[in-house]
Each structure stands twice: as C-alpha cells, then as structure tokens.
C-alpha cells in the first residue's frame, strides 16, 4: 500500500482514457488526482494466474507491469465489475450463478476515500456521521500541516503545538508514514505530527448545566498544561509603487520603521480589522513577476481553548466548551484520573454513534490496563468528595480542534459606521457592523409588548432622523433660505405650497422613510403626511406613508 502511494506521488498525474463500449469513442478524461486513483486500484484476477502461483517477492511495480494490479480512475471504475474483497470473488451467492467480476478491491476500506479511510470504526457509525467527519471535520481540524512553517507566508495557517497519534488507527492511516518506514517493516508507526488532534480523557457525564446542546466542560488545568494549544499565523500583503525605489539605491539606514510614513508620502499600510491582533512573526520584502515590490507581514497568535471554540471527535460529534472547570472540581477515579473533557450523554442516542464508547472501551483497555470493566469507571465527586452512585464512562478519545474559533467570530457594536445611503448601521463584521435585528426578533418584542424597547431598537438606535411637515397642506416642508420682510434672510423650514412657515412642524421619521419620500418627490409624486400630536412625550414620530 505504502509503496503504491509513493509510486503515484512520484509518477504524478495519470492520463486516463475510457473507451465507450457502444460507440468505441475514446474519451480523454483528463488528469486524475493520484490520491484518488490510489483508492480505486483493483486486482485483475482473471488473467496471469500462473504469475501469482509462482513464489517470489513481488514489488508493487512488478505486479503493475504484469497487469495483476491496475490503476483505475473514477470514470473508468463505472465500467468495472468490482468485487468488494477477495472473499466475494470466491464465494457463491446462494441460488445464483457466481458474478463474473472483472476487478477486485485491494482492501475493502478503499471503497471509501482517503479521509474516510483514516479514522477507525467508521463501520460502527451512522453514514451521515461518517460524512461529517470525512468531509467537514477532517478538513477543518488543526494539525501540523507543513514541515517548513517558518519560511512559508500563507495568508492563514494553523498549527497544533502537540499533535498526538490516536490510540486507534486504520491500515490506511498507517500508510501515511514515511516511505522509508512503512508499517510492514519494523512495525514503525507514522509520526504523531501526521495526525491532527489529541487523545483527551473524555467522560460521558453531566457536569452542572454547562454541557447542554453539544457543549462540554473542559478541564482548565489541562488547557493550562498545553492541551489543544494552537498557533495561528496570518499574513498581510501590501504592494508598493516602486517608482522611487528603482532610481534610489537602498541605503543601510533605510530600515523599516513601523508606524511611520516614509518621506515619499505614500502610505501602503494595511489596516488590521478591529478584532485582529498578534505578534509580528516575520516580514518579507520581495517583488512579483511584474517586478512590483511588495511586503508581507505575518502576525502570530497562540491560542488555547476557550468558550465557544469548536472541537470534534472523529465521529461527527462536534461541540464547544461551555465552561472551563478547575481540576479539583471534576470527579476523579480511585487512581486519580480526572477527565479533560466531560460531554453530555444526550449526544449519543439520537446520533447513533456508538463508536465513541467503542473507542472508549477499547482505549481504556490499552490505557488503564485491567482496571476498568466495560469502559465504565467508578468516580468520586470532586466538589464534595462523596461517591458518585453510578458508573461513569471514561476513556481516551481522539479529539480534533477545528479552525472555527470564537475569537474569529466575535461581533459586537455599541455605535459605529452607518450605511451612507440608508443611514442604517452596517451589517459587516469586518467593518464593526451590528447584529441584525430582524423580523422574527421584532415579532418577539411585539409579543412581549415591549414597545418602548422596540422603538429604541428599530428607530432611535437605527436610522432616526427628522423632517418638516406643513400641517395645513400635509406636504413636506424643506429647509430653505428665503427673504423675509426688510430684506432679512431667514434660513429655516418653509412650506412652498402654502407660502408660509406658520404651520410647519418637525417630525421624527426613520431616514428610510424620508429617503423614500424624497425619491418619490423626484419623480413628481408628493407624499402627504397626516400628523398628530403625540401624547407620549418621548415618542414623537408619525408613520403615514
């Protein structure tokens, strides 16, 4: 298996061709991803039986050359009669003639892709949970992705401080190891850096009220000792016009001075978003193919788990920490083992992921020797020291830290930028926008009868504005400068229709309403405003259009 992977990586993309049976047209299907083809390798069993019968040391290459093993691309696979495993090639299905297979999977787990193949006990999971892990969580989990993090300038990169090898891994996962050290030789396992997660001691229990709805309680001491600590590097790039730089030779005293604009006057700085922060990891000055100079500044940040960060086991069981509890408050075993994570038992019945307990049980046998019976463990309550009168499931479970973290998602606003046209607060998080108070939220306040609160939320704190209305003709009165008696110039609201300013009053309206009336006005439609004196002093508005 391992040599196969490396064969594919060395030979790079493979052009696949498919011959349509009926038309005989050869369709070039383009380049296949080597990793994808790797899992579609099947064994052609019908021919060359004599080759296999002989004894000898077969390399993968020799099997390939003889046509014993074929590389099959995705589209090609559609036309193959592929058996699940050798077992099905040789056994007859009851009452039916044996199926004439053309190919056979090297291993049953190759039916699924790479990301499905690397987590254990997928066959115990509900299909949807397998997909969650294979498609979403395995992509989002933070690991140690590169061997050269210090010289890279990714826009965003995450690295886990102490990745661990899971207690259980599949054959496919073992093949991820170095080419020099396949598992077959010396039983060498891949380095822990290849896995993106840690083995946390997980207890299935309720802990106060902090583990409701897929939240869980985390051990603060474990976090302080470095559990799930990750490093995040974000790079900012700015291009520079290199007019002056070309003429002028760079002198040694031309050092970069942060926070100071060069004499040339141009500021090429990139502003941080208001929630972003970090330490400068490195500064790269370079130029691109068009010989434009650019600078990249990388900011580094070290994060330990916090409330609202996302974690997941390998079985689609995602959750967030709801509380970071001190070590001494957790229940403990007679051996002194304290859980790192306490998850709620409600996460299991409806999801049908018995796998977590399976890993748990078997994991326990590895971890704690003979002490545990059926993965359950007896505990003492940490707060009172009294015995917990039930057995608690506990054991190591491989947990992944996902890239969704509370710090990247905080959104709050007291006051801030407004939309230039509507004068409503902007919604964008990057621009210090607000959280939408939508229709359903409005309904909620109405249901509560909280009209003052509603008025404040939707009007005062949004696009409150004022306009003038003439009470006698109901038209909008604009502020103009006019000549009054004795040639005096007066600037103020004036009704052009009535030719007077006597009945003009000021009303509070949402800016949106005012804008609408002005837009109508520009089309020759004049809105009339029926106004009424409002007896509640502080609500002084009218919505009449």
């Amino acid at each position, binding site marked *: 298996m391992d040599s196969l992977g490396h064969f594919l990586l060395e030979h790079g993309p493979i052009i696949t061709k498919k011959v349509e049976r009926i038309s005989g047209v050869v369709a070039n299907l383009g380049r296949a991803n080597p990793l994808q083809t790797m899992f579609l390798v099947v064994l052609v069993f019908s021919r060359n039986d004599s080759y296999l019968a002989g004894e000898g040391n077969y390399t993968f290459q020799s099997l390939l050359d003889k046509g014993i093993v074929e590389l099959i691309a995705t589209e090609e696979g559609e036309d193959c009669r592929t058996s699940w495993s050798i077992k099905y090639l040789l056994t007859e299905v009851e009452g039916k003639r044996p199926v004439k297979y053309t190919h056979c999977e090297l291993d049953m787990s190759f039916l699924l892709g790479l990301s499905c193949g690397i987590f254990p006990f997928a066959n115990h999971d509900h299909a949807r949970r397998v997909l969650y892990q294979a498609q979403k969580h395995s992509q989002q989990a933070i690991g140690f992705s590169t061997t050269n993090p210090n010289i890279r300038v990714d826009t965003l990169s995450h690295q886990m401080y102490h990745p661990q090898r899971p207690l259980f891994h599949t054959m496919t996962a073992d093949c991820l190891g170095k080419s020099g050290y396949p598992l077959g030789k010396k039983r060498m396992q891949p380095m822990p850096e290849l896995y993106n997660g840690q083995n946390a001691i997980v207890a299935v229990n309720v802990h106060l009220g902090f583990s409701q709805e897929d939240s869980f309680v985390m051990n603060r001491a474990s976090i*302080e000792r470095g559990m799930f600590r990750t*490093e995040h590097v974000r790079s900012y790039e700015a291009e520079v016009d290199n007019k002056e730089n070309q003429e002028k030779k760079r002198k040694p005293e031309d050092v970069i001075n942060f926070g100071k604009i060069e004499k040339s006057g141009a500021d090429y700085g990139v502003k941080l978003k208001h929630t972003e922060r970090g330490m400068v990891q490195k500064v790269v000055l370079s130029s691109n193919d068009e010989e434009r100079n650019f600078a990249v500044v990388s900011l580094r940040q070290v994060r330990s788990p916090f409330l609202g960060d996302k974690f997941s086991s390998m079985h689609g069981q995602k959750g967030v920490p709801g509380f970071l509890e001190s070590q001494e408050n957790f229940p403990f*075993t*007679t051996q002194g083992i304290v859980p790192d994570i306490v998850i709620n038992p409600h996460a299991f019945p409806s999801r049908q992921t018995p796998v977590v307990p399976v890993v748990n049980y078997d994991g326990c046998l590895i971890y704690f020797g003979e*002490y545990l019976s059926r993965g359950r*463990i*007896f505990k003492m309550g940490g707060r009172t020291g*009294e015995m917990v009168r039930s057995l608690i499931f506990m054991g190591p479970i491989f947990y992944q830290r996902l890239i969704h973290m509370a710090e990247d998602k905080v959104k709050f606003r007291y006051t801030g930028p407004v939309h230039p046209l509507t004068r409503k607060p902007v919604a964008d998080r990057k621009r210090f926008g607000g959280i939408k108070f939508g229709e359903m939220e409005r309904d909620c306040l109405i249901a509560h009868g909280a009209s003052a609160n509603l008025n404040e939320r939707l009007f005062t704190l949004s696009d409150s504005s004022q306009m003038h209305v003439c009470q006698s003709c109901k038209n909008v009165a604009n502020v103009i400068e006019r000549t009054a008696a004795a040639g005096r110039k007066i600037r103020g609201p004036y009704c052009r229709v009535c030719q007077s300013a006597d009945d003009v009053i000021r009303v509070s309206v949402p800016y949106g309403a005012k804008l609408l009336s002005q837009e109508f006005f520009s089309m020759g439609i004049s809105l009339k405003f029926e106004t009424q004196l409002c007896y509640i002093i502080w609500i002084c508005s009218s919505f009449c259009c």
Partner: protein
Amino acid sequence: MEGASYQRFPKIKIRELKDDYAKFELRDTDASMANALRRVMIAEVPTIAIDLVEIEVNSSVLNDEFIAHRLGLIPLTSERAMSMRFSRDCDACDGDGQCEFCSVEFHLRAKCMSDQTLDVTSNDLYSSDHTVVPVNFTDSAGYDSSEQRGIIIVKLRRGQELRLRAIARKGIGKDHAKWSPAATVTFMYEPEIHINEDMMDTLTLEEKQSFVESSPTRVFDIDPNTQQVVVVDPEAYTYDDEVLKKAEAMGKPGLVEIYAKEDSFIFTVESTGAIKASQMVLNAIDILKQKLDAVRLSEDTVEADDQFGELGAHMRGG
C-alpha cells in the same frame, strides 16, 4: 458548654513514604475533611514557578510563547514557597524580579555551535537563589545517574541561539496549573466486604472460580487448602459492582455485601517534585487551618452562640 460535641480526632497512618509519593490512611473523619485536604493539595498549596519571561534572542524553531509556556511548567524546588510573599502582596517591589522576597530570577543562555543538535534543558537555567532551582530527577533510581538529564526546553541546531531572563514567583494551582505541586492526589473509601459463607458453600468450585474471576481487579481468591472464597485485597476493589452483578446472575443475590466505610479514606499523593509529598500534605493542613481561622468565631462572642447554637460550639472546638 452544653450540647453534644462533634469534635473528632482524625488519625493518619502512613503506609508508604517516598520523596514524591505518599500513601496514607485517614480515619475517624468524614468526606468533607478528606476532600478539603485533596482540593487544597491540588489548588492551594503554593509553589514557585516561572511566571514572567523576557526573551532577548530566540532563533530556535519554537516561538517565544511556546518557550515561555514550557518554562512555566518546569517544577522548581519550592520549600521556600510557604514563607515567601505573593508578588501582589509584596510591599518591597512591584513584582518585576528586583525583590528577593517575592521573586527569583533565572537566566538562560544557550547557543549551538556544533553540528550536533543541542538540547537546552532545565539544567541550563541559572537561578539567582540556590534554594529555588529546577527539580532534579537524576538522583532517583532508575535513571542513568551519570547523565545529567534535565527537562528539555528546546532543541537547537547549528547557529541557533536562545537567551532569556525569567522571573519565578510564588503562586497557587488555582491561578495556573503550573503552580500546582500535585501530580496526583486521590483518595478512595475503604471498602468493607462481607462474604455470606453459608451461601458461598452452596457453590461448586467452578462457580466459585467464575465468581472470583468476575472481578476485573483481584479482590477475591480461592484458598487452595479449604477451597473457600476469601478476600485477598479489599482495596483492589474499584466499586465497579461487577461481583454483585455476577452474584445476581448466578441467582445468589446477597452472596457478597460491599459497603464503603464512611469515615476512612486511603490517600495516594504524588508530587511534581516541587515539594516533597509529605510536605505537601502538611502544607495543605496548614492552609486548611488558616482558612478555617478566617471563619472561626471568637471565643467570647455570646451573640454568636445564640446565632449559631451548636454550630458555634462545634466551630470553637467544644
């Protein structure tokens, strides 16, 4: 003084005592006392740990935060910690390491000049105070004593350098786990196991054997001479209820009865090496006493007696 006295006289019997390990029995007291002792040992016995790090040069592969975190977790010998001041309570300084009452300064200078990878360990930390040094594990048996192996901080390759100043301060586990002297502190209730001999006699030898084997830990055994089931090690019992379920499955409920003694506890205490395990227990008792002093009612307040009644008498130790 009227009313019943609730005062008890707890006893401690030491079973095993090593520098970093202690096992003892605590008797004639209740769970609140045992648990208070456990909690104080984990969270409130002070030690000294590196708290501030000023990095001068760091060209290693690990970043500054990583190294600072690793430094913080190195246990330092903290016999002095009980008499030391917290930086926040220190009048002499503002906790920047200038003051000998509340802080200890460390220096680390390492540069790799050879082609071989250089391990920077806790042995490279130079302390300003010879009583506060990184814990040395080499003297304990089992390690190769010829090699001075400290706790590894970072590995340097040729040309890489690490230079820093670190300030260690007193603290408690509640503030940060690095200040906790406890590696493991746990207790168990002493189990009391009664075998119903009459009922046991009705079992065949095979049944006895399967009963004995049903316990995941070796609690029971069969006496080879009398072929009777005997309790070999009651403390091996982990309250897993397996034998009770086995008895029920065999149709013999009540074959064994197991109780947890409410007033005796078996403690296992392991230390990180910052202070001796025995000292950790003693310090915990001291701290517990200090905490109780804070709530103790004074001897002569009559109002307190009216207010709290028996509780007042109890708290005064009458």
